[in-house]
């Protein structure tokens, strides 16, 4: 359930109104022991400021980097993170799960 995401979606709206480029990253699928359920989200602005979470902190850094690209291009992206990922040592999920994160521009 996404009860606690209310304030971050409000923040996304406020940032957009203030003229920031904003992206929304949402967990759309999980396999194995993923830290956050589908529907969990992270909002990111063009300063690199972010609120919320899509994992226990394991992959947020990578998601923010990708989100800045999405803000620039306007094109949505699907990201996948998991132990099978070749970048696992850098941004893999230590819990052994796999997640897919959809990143889209707000605006």
């Amino acid at each position: 359930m996404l009860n606690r995401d209310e304030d971050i979606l409000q923040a996304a709206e406020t940032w957009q109104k203030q003229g920031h480029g904003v992206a929304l990253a949402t967990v759309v699928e999980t396999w194995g022991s993923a830290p956050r359920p589908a529907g969990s989200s992270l909002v990111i602005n063009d300063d690199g400021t972010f609120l919320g979470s899509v994992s226990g902190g394991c992959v947020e850094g990578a998601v923010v980097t990708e989100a800045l690209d999405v803000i620039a291009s306007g094109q949505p992206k699907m990201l996948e993170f998991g132990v099978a990922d070749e970048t696992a040592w850098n941004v893999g999920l230590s819990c052994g799960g796999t997640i897919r994160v959809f990143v889209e521009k707000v605006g």
Partner: protein
Amino acid sequence: MKIQVLKELNAERAARRPVIIVTDTTTGEQRLVKAKDIAADPLRAELSKQLRMGKSGNVEVAGNKLFLNVYAPTAKLVIIGAVHISQALAPLARSLDYDVTVVDPRTAFATPERFPDVPLVAEWPDVALPPLNVDHYTAFVAVTHDPKIDDPALLHAFDRDCFYIGALGSRKTHAKRAERLRAQGAKESDIARIHAPIGLDIGAVSPSEIAVAIMAEITAQLRLPPKEKEEAA
């Protein structure tokens, strides 16, 4: 997400109305479906199932992968009566993620010592209930055994269309309560919505067991599809 969609999403959530955002994860195409529009939606079966479970998930429709993101309000539980059962019920409901409030005008009952960390309102229902914004996403439980307190509270719960309404008392007690509510102008269909005797029939004896029976009944009301709900009741 278009800014109009985000604004509408935030407005619906502020009003505690459920919303589902449907996203085609290949194209990024997106639409917002309000709870009241689900019945007329081509995806009504999938949408109503996800909403009932309060869970986001993926469906494939005509070869398109769609992500259904469910935004359901936090369920509230209003307990009328700061009694022994409520002392077990409040922490149990909180562990199930309900926002819990206990109402009892009897100040000897409604004390922070008896209800640590639970919002308590030591007022009569006519004063206590309006500010609580009781709505459809509220489970409403009346357990004082005192008609002066329970009856007006139940009328308020009817008025706000709570998804669950339960009241403590035997069948005999409940028959008398139904008569009183009828005399106060309550509709038959509303009176029929009261779960009484309260809780699933699991042979509960102690206050904690009764609390489990009540939360099980509330969970069934929240999660089961309509037909199975009737069978569980």
